[in-house]
């Protein structure tokens, strides 16, 4: 085993200035690399068919498009939009990642889960002609809630088919596959920074 060789680089004012000049573009490159890695991961998730064979909600494609990143001092902050409901922050991606309970929106008593592909991504209030531009037809659907049951249904009056399941809440189990591993993300940032060095060298940055 050779002895360790340590070379100390003197931080001359010129070297310090050079390092300072490269800090911001390197962080920018890392931030864009992190954003891009996350977006690509979400896009892959979007390629998975809907488990129930329903039309896709494009949830993950939309998450991929909404990822933003920013340099904050020595850190890179990556974010996906979240919303507020009754004073609580509700982050749909984070909810799937860490797990949690989804409650009905304020003013609503139940969550409506579509049971028929024809009503996927449509609210019960949009059914009965509204989604196609007409007025709501009161007689199109009716509520069916078995006595002492924790859940109910919205039924199509014409076909008698149950269109939505109504529940008071639903729980997502934690799913670590929602996010890439921390190691993968670190590698993506490092790879991007290495690539930036080549580009920045080409700009003529030698001290």
């Amino acid at each position: 085993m050779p002895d360790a060789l340590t070379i100390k680089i003197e931080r001359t004012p010129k070297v310090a200035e050079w390092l300072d000049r490269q800090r911001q573009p390197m962080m920018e490159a890392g931030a864009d690399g992190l954003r891009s890695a996350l977006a690509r991961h979400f896009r892959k998730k979007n390629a998975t068919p809907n488990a129930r064979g329903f039309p896709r909600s494009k949830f993950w494609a939309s998450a991929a498009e909404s990822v933003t990143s920013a340099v904050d001092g020595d850190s890179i902050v990556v974010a996906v939009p979240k919303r507020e409901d009754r004073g609580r922050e509700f982050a749909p991606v984070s909810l799937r990642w860490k797990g949690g309970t989804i409650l009905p929106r304020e003013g609503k008593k139940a969550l409506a889960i579509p049971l028929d592909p024809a009503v996927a991504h449509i609210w019960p209030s949009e059914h009965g002609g509204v989604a196609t531009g007409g007025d709501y037809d009161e007689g199109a659907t009716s509520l069916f809630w078995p006595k002492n049951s924790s859940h109910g249904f919205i039924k199509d009056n014409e076909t008698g088919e149950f269109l939505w399941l109504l529940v008071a809440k639903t729980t997502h189990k934690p799913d670590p596959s929602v996010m890439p591993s921390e190691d993968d993300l670190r590698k993506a940032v490092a790879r991007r920074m290495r690539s930036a060095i080549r580009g920045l060298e080409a700009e003529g940055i030698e001290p």
Partner: protein
Amino acid sequence: MTAADKILQKALVGSDLDTAGWSEVQAGLRDRAFFSAKVEEARILAEARRMCAEVADGRMDASEFRRDMRKVLDQTGYQAAGEGIQNLRTKARLDLVLDTQVRQARGWAQWKAATTRGALAAVPAWELVRVREVKVERDWDRRWAAAGGRLFDGRKIALKNDPVWTRISRFGTPYPPFDFNSGMGVDDVDYEEAVELGLIKDGDPPPKMEDKGFNDGLSAKLPEGREKELDPFLRETFGAQVSIDGKNVVHWNEHLIRDMLAGNGQMNASLGQGKRNKAMLDMIPDEAMRTRAAQTGLTISRQWMATHGQKHRNPSGKGSVNMPLEDGDYELIPSLWRKPDGVEVHSENELELWIDTLDGGRLRMGVDLRKGSPTTFFKQNMAAKAPSSA
């Protein structure tokens, strides 16, 4: 600036133009306008713009957007231009409006991050790839080739500053989305790969982007041979928001009203001759007044806005029947002049135009037909009782 800010920065342009008509308008101008085919009503567009920004910010979701937009359409008495996608009440059309606005704004935000000095050094090029499945796939190979794009083993790759990105875009923007429901996006091509492909010579600096801020003035040359046709069309559509110089270059004054409110921009802005505003003229019962209004051009000045704003932004005093004016109310002035909800004749020289706002107010603007300038502008609270005359 966030994706939501990008949406809120757009100027409201109510117009009877259909999609084909809008495609005639230069892409750069379209990118700075918030419009929807065959929607003339500025109040609908103002609410749609606000809500799209909320969705982009994550404060609202698509189903809430559709629900609240339908309420707005009911309140404004919206009449659909046709069935299906031509009807703004349908899920398909509302989703299209939202999807296009939000995806464009998010595409812009990601493009900004991808074109910083550091990001360009690391990743100087993009590959056009499919990022979403769509029902009917367009022929992107042909479109790419027609726009002058090069293929690398069948892959569509170009430097980020290559004009091909703008050329393949229906919206004239160098970032995705490139068309309605296209499902196409971009993937990164790093410096090393760009060198391997011959896009950059090893050791050459990464591409530079033209640093053009969103608020920078925009101009575009009218296509040769079509000047006579497009000049009046653009003036008619955009009013004072465009000016066309002697060299057939269109200059875009996107923040005409907002800039004037902030004390910047033009000293005076002409909102056009009354003769162009058929909807307004039709509401004037008196023939002679109608003729006078048709011959009048309305001009608003920065000075008027400044003095007026001080007085009407915070109407105080007990029993005030007026509501405070906001920037958004001033943005409706061109719509008031073009297409009011009602017109009252006050004297032989003065008309009062009004438009109902969605917050329960009624914007009223008096117009002096001799001077061609506003006399009054305020928002009446329609829920408040009028003060007793006793």
